[in-house]
């Protein structure tokens, strides 16, 4: 499966590329702004999932925004950088045990080997 590699603070994560409808750089896209806890893009409002807060990371000076497309709705996630898109075999992705999470809702579903160490795979279904 194709994964978009992103970084959030010092954390390194991956998002299924199929779920990313668009990568929005506010510096280049004038029709994007944040309003309260929502993102407004081309006149449409989207809920924002604060991955920085979930990861305990401080937001960088120039975040970019992933517009995630689910079956029923769309949402926006801020990341500090989109590094690359890579093909990762599904068999290389190990599921995370549910019992390690403090709450039933969890933002990550797996982990896979990456050059500098394990990388977490975001669970876009939990966000959308």
């Amino acid at each position, binding site marked *: 499966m194709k994964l978009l590699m992103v970084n959030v603070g010092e954390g390194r994560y991956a998002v299924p590329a199929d779920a990313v409808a668009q990568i929005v750089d506010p510096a280049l896209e004038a029709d994007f702004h944040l309003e309260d806890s929502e993102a407004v893009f081309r006149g449409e409002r989207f809920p924002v999932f604060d991955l920085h807060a*979930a990861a305990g990371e401080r937001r960088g000076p120039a975040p970019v925004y992933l517009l995630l497309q689910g079956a029923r709705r769309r949402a926006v996630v801020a990341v500090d950088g989109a590094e690359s898109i890579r093909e990762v075999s*599904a068999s*290389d992705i190990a*599921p995370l045990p*549910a*019992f390690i999470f403090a709450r039933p809702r*969890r933002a*990550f579903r797996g*982990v896979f080997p990456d050059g500098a160490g*394990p990388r977490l795979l975001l669970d876009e279904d939990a966000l959308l």
Partner: protein
Amino acid sequence: MSDGGADRLIGFHLDGAGAALPLAIVREVTERPRVVRVPGTHPFVSGVTLHGGVALPVYDLRRFESLWSGREDAGHRAGAADADRLIVCDWGEIALGLLGGRVDLVEDAGEARGGEGREDMRCGMSGDFVKRVLRFHGEAIALLDTDRLFASLGVPAAEPRGRRETGEDDPAGG
């Protein structure tokens, strides 16, 4: 889960406190691997590491405050150098890792005498998680009650092999 393996134990240290586990549940001891932090997990979960293609949860017992009811600095002990090893345990179908230092084989030479039940005799640990206190090379070592400890960490009870763990769905979404 039986202690198995007769009286063979594996000892380790948690910030100077001696602890021991039944050797029967220990699969291996490795150097501390690269552990990736997972947001949203319990505070005593250090993260996960990949171990033979499996996501191995790594626990830092120094952060498990309930274990350290006898110490004022419970919860603030993580980060010390006394956790340079990963003790990989098999718990039913589940594997989990515990961080520790100064790992060694320990012979169960009998219970330490005097002051039984006192916190200093339990190495600063809560009696809820200590099966008994041993004396090894002049040092008090708390034999951990793995049934209670792992249950309190949220680890599902050890079950016969062949049952799939709830929540471990196909991570690729297939």
